[in-house]
C-alpha cells in the first residue's frame, strides 16, 4: 500500500488530540490513510478517526491492552503494519510515543525521525523538519528506509476535520507472550483534568520569582480562566526548590512545549528554559527585572512585580469574560 499508517494513542479512555493532528496531516500526503488504535475499549473510539481523514481503522481491543506495555503494543502495531505495508508511519511524540516509536522502528529494522514539527512530501518521501540542540537548530531529515517512521510533536501541526472512508476492522493479534518481560505492578496517574504540558494550548509557568509553592495557586487560577486546554508549568529553579514536581518542568531537561500562549511569571529566561518553550506561538513575560533575557523572546512583556500583576490580570480577564 502506498499510504500512511498512523498510531492513534488512547489515554484515559480517549483518543489523544495528537492522533487527529497526524491523521489529518497524512491525508495531505495522498494515498490511503490507515489508523491503528490499541487499547481496552478502543473499538468504541475508533469511528472518531474517520472525521480527521482515516480511511481504514484497525482496532486492537482487549483487556490485555488496558495499560501501555511497550512490548505488547509494539507487537500488535507491527502486526498491523505488516498487513498494511505502509510507506509512512506517523506517531505522536507524546510521552508514550517517545517510548513506542523507536521500538516500532527497531522491530521493523528501519530508522526513525523523532519529534518533528513540519512534514512535507517530496516525491515518494516525506521530509521532516525537527529541532535539534534543544531547538537551537532545525534539521530537514529524510528517513531512507521503508516504511519511514516519523513521530510528530503534539500541537505543532494543528488539525482539521476532513472526512475519510472510516472502515473499521477489528484485528485479532497473536502476542508472543514469551517476549513480554516487563510486568506492570502499579500505575499512578494524578486525577487531574489538566492536559499534559506537551499538549496544552496555554501554559502559565512560574519560576524562582514565585517565592514559594503556595503562590502557584495563583497561576493555577489564571490557567483555569483559559479553560480546559490550559495548564501550569515551572522553571527548573522552581522544581529544584521542591515547589513543583519535575513533571511540570519546561526546558532542556524538562518538557518541550509549543502552546499557543506561554505566560512566564518570575522566570529569567535562561537558555535551557528557552530551549523548552521557544517555539510557543505567543510568549508573555512578567518579570520585575527589565534586563531579564526572557524579554528578548517575549511578544508581550510586563516589567513589574508579579504579585501585583497576576492577581490584577485574573480580575481583568474575568471582566472581559463577563
Amino acid at each position, binding site marked *: 500500500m502506498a499510504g500512511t499508517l498512523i498510531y492513534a494513542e488512547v*489515554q484515559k479512555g480517549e483518543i489523544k488530540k495528537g492522533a487527529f493532528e497526524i491523521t489529518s496531516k497524512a491525508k495531505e500526503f495522498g494515498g490511503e490513510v490507515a489508523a491503528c488504535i490499541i487499547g481496552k475499549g478502543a473499538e468504541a473510539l475508533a469511528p472518531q478517526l474517520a472525521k480527521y481523514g482515516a480511511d481504514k481503522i484497525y482496532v486492537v481491543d482487549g483487556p490485555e491492552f488496558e*495499560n501501555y506495555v*511497550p512490548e505488547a503494543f509494539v507487537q500488535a502495531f507491527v502486526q498491523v503494519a505488516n498487513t498494511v505495508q505502509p510507506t509512512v508511519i506517523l506517531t505522536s511524540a507524546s*510521552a*508514550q510515543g*517517545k*517510548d513506542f*516509536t*523507536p*521500538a516500532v*522502528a527497531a522491530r521493523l529494522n528501519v*530508522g526513525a525521525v*523523532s*519529534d518533528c514539527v513540519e512534514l512535507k512530501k517530496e516525491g515518494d518521501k516525506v*521530509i521532516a523538519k525537527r529541532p*535539534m*540542540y534543544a*531547538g*537551537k*537548530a*532545525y*534539521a*530537514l*531529515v*529524510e*528517513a*531512507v*528506509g521503508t516504511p519511514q517512521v516519523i513521530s510528530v510533536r503534539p500541537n505543532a501541526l494543528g488539525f482539521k476535520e476532513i472526512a475519510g472512508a472510516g472502515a473499521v476492522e477489528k484485528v485479532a493479534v497473536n502476542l508472543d507472550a514469551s517476549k513480554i*518481560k*516487563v*510486568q*506492570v505492578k*502499579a*500505575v*499512578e*496517574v*494524578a486525577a487531574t483534568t489538566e492536559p499534559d504540558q506537551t499538549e496544552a494550548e496555554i501554559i502559565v509557568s512560574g519560576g524562582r520569582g514565585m517565592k514559594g509553592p503556595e503562590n502557584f495557586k495563583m497561576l493555577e487560577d489564571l490557567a483555569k*480562566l483559559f479553560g480546559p486546554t490550559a495548564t501550569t508549568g515551572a522553571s527548573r529553579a522552581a522544581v529544584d526548590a521542591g515547589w513543583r514536581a*519535575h*513533571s511540570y518542568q519546561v526546558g532542556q*531537561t*524538562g518538557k518541550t512545549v509549543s502552546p499557543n*500562549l506561554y505566560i512566564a511569571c518570575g522566570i529569567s529566561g535562561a*537558555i535551557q528554559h528557552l530551549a523548552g518553550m*521557544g*517555539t510557543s506561538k505567543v510568549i*508573555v513575560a512578567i518579570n520585575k527585572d527589565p534586563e531579564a533575557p526572557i524579554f528578548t*523572546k*517575549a511578544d*508581550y*512583556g*510586563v516589567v513589574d*512585580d508579579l504579585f*501585583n500583576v497576576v492577581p*490584577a*490580570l485574573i480580575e*481583568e480577564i474575568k*471582566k*472581559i*469574560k463577563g
Partner: protein
Amino acid sequence: MNTVVCLKQVPDTETLIKVAGTSIATEGIKWVINPYDEFAVEEAIRQKEKMNAGKVTIVSLGPDRAIESIRTALAMGADDAVHINDGAYYDTADPYATAQVLAAAIKGLTYDAVFLGKQAIDDDAGQVPAFLGELLGLPVVTQVIKFEVSADKKTATVTREIEGGQMVVEVPLPAVFSAQKGLNEPRYASLPGIMKAKKKPVDVKNAGALGVSAGPMTVIKEMSLPPARQAGKIITGDDAKAKAAALAKALHEEVKII
C-alpha cells in the same frame, strides 16, 4: 552487579549553536557528558556500591575528544571503558547506526544491566535505548526515575515516568534502562578519583574492528537556525493594575485567546 553505561559527549547546554553545512560548527564548543548519561553513570556506580560487588563499564562512540568525558565517568567511579574512536563513522551515525556499534561493543561484555540516557541533548532523538534493546534481544524500560534490584540480581523493580504520573514495572535482568531526571543526583569526580581514572583501562577500537558497517537510516539534508524571534512589545502603564488591564486587552483583541 555489573553494568554497562552508554555515554555520549555533547555540547554544553549553554553553547550557542552555529550551523556549518548539514551539521554544526564545532569550534569553541565546551564538551560535556550528556546530562541524562550522568544520571546513568551515577546509578550504575550506586548499584555497585550498594552491593559491594561488580563493575561499571563505560561504552562511548565518539571522536578523540570523547576520551575526556570517558575519563570523567571513570573519575566518578566507573571501572573501565570501551571507546569506539571512529570520527568518520560518528559523523554520519544516526541513532540506528550508533546502536549497531554500541551493541557490537556490548555483546562481548558480562553485565546485568545496560544504562543509557533517555535522550542525547544534541540530536534529541531518544532512540538509541530502543534500538539497542532490540539488537541485544533484551527488554527495555525507558524514562527510569527509580531503580532497585532484587537480592538475587535476577529482577529489577523500576519506576518510570509516564504522562501525568508514574508506572512501576518489574523486569528480569539483564535489561536495558534509560535514565530520566529525578533518578539521582550525580556526584562530582573527586581529586583522588581523577588521579585513579588516569590508570583505568580504556579499550580503544573502531567500528570496523567491531565488524560493524551498518550505515545510517536517516539523513540530514539541511540544517538551519530557528527564525529569530523579535522582541515584542513592553506593556506600559501607571501601575501594575493598568499594565495587567492592557495585557488582558491585548490577549483578548490581538492574540484573541480570551
